[in-house]
């Protein structure tokens, strides 16, 4: 069995095993699993509806930002410096987009992968950036929105700093492994 098959096997089995363990322990402890499940599930609708206003605010703002062409302008500004670090210009939009929108980041990544091919440095760097990121703005909007918090204090700044640390680390590691 190759390593890759092993990984596939793990990703196939994690979910069933977690559910199996939780249910089995519960039944052993004589928990009424069906009643408790439906009781907990009741909140699903409420939570999803609660986050809509916050989600609308942040996603409208971000989709306006993406349509405005500002990201392309940043790309031009940054490309000079980043060329010196042997970072392909096409990876730059990914660095900006990944904190804003998960689906957009994945789209840009697929684009890079398809254009540059499997053996290119750009594809590998982009894979590292996408694989180690979470969409900061979306997470903040959804999580704080669900408990109706509007004063986020330093959470946004911390998220952005963490993103920058992630990008710098990705560039450094990609140079170490793939260049």
């Amino acid at each position, binding site marked *: 069995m190759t390593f*890759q098959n092993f*990984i596939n096997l793990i990703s196939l089995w994690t*979910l069933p095993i*977690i559910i199996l*363990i939780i249910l089995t322990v*519960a039944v052993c402890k004589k928990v009424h*699993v069906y009643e*408790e499940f439906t009781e*907990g599930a*009741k*909140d*699903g*609708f409420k*939570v*999803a*509806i609660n*986050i809509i206003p916050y*989600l*609308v605010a*942040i996603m*409208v703002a971000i989709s*306006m*930002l*993406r*349509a*405005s*062409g*500002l990201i*392309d*302008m940043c790309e031009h500004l940054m490309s000079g410096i980043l060329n010196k670090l042997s970072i392909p210009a096409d990876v730059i939009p990914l660095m900006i987009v990944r904190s804003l929108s998960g689906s957009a980041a994945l789209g840009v990544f*697929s684009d890079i*992968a398809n254009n540059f091919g*499997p053996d290119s440095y750009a*594809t590998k760097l982009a894979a590292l950036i*996408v*694989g*180690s990121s979470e969409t*900061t703005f979306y997470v903040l909007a*959804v*999580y*704080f929105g*669900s*408990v109706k*918090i*509007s004063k*986020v*204090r*330093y*959470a946004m700044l*911390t*998220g952005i700093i963490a*993103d920058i*640390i*992630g990008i710098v*680390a*990705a560039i450094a*590691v*990609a140079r*170490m*492994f793939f260049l």
Partner: protein
Amino acid sequence: MNYIFYFLVIISIIAGAINGKLQDVVNAILTGADVSVKVAFSLIGIMAFWLGIMRIAEKSGIINFITKLLKPIAKYLFNEVPHDNKAIGDIAMCFSANALGLTNAATPIGLKAMEELQEVNKDKSTASNAMCMFLAMNTAGFQLVPATVIAVLVGIGYKNPTEIIMPTLIVTTTAFLGAIITAKIFQKLWSEQ
């Protein structure tokens, strides 16, 4: 959040005007609003499912067990939260789900953790230190196996896509630790709630 929202909207309109893309920006309002409702609705079913499972885990004492297990770490990271609070167990479950790439499960569990953190929060409209720490760790997006990325790489005929796992793990761990340290520093510097 007020300034961030204002800043994002204003700068988009100005940049849109400069680039001659004002029409696109206006259209983006509609698409953005549309997509956000779709995202919220697509969450309902999976949210209900995981909240149900989590309720079973709670009643059977699994959450309690994890909370006790993580007491020493939780004491340091979330020093304001009473360390037998079940938020700690939920936070741990959220990160395990994230680490295993179960994004669908991580969000509902994480939102449940937020709810419990909100219960011990002094000012209900302002983020507590514990919440900022939790979200800092969350936005760093710690993941053991980047399944989606591997899927794309397989799709373009990448010969050995699993070679990406190790470097990704180094990067994501660095970002994760960086996020924790940054949040800890801000916790000291930032004014009280």
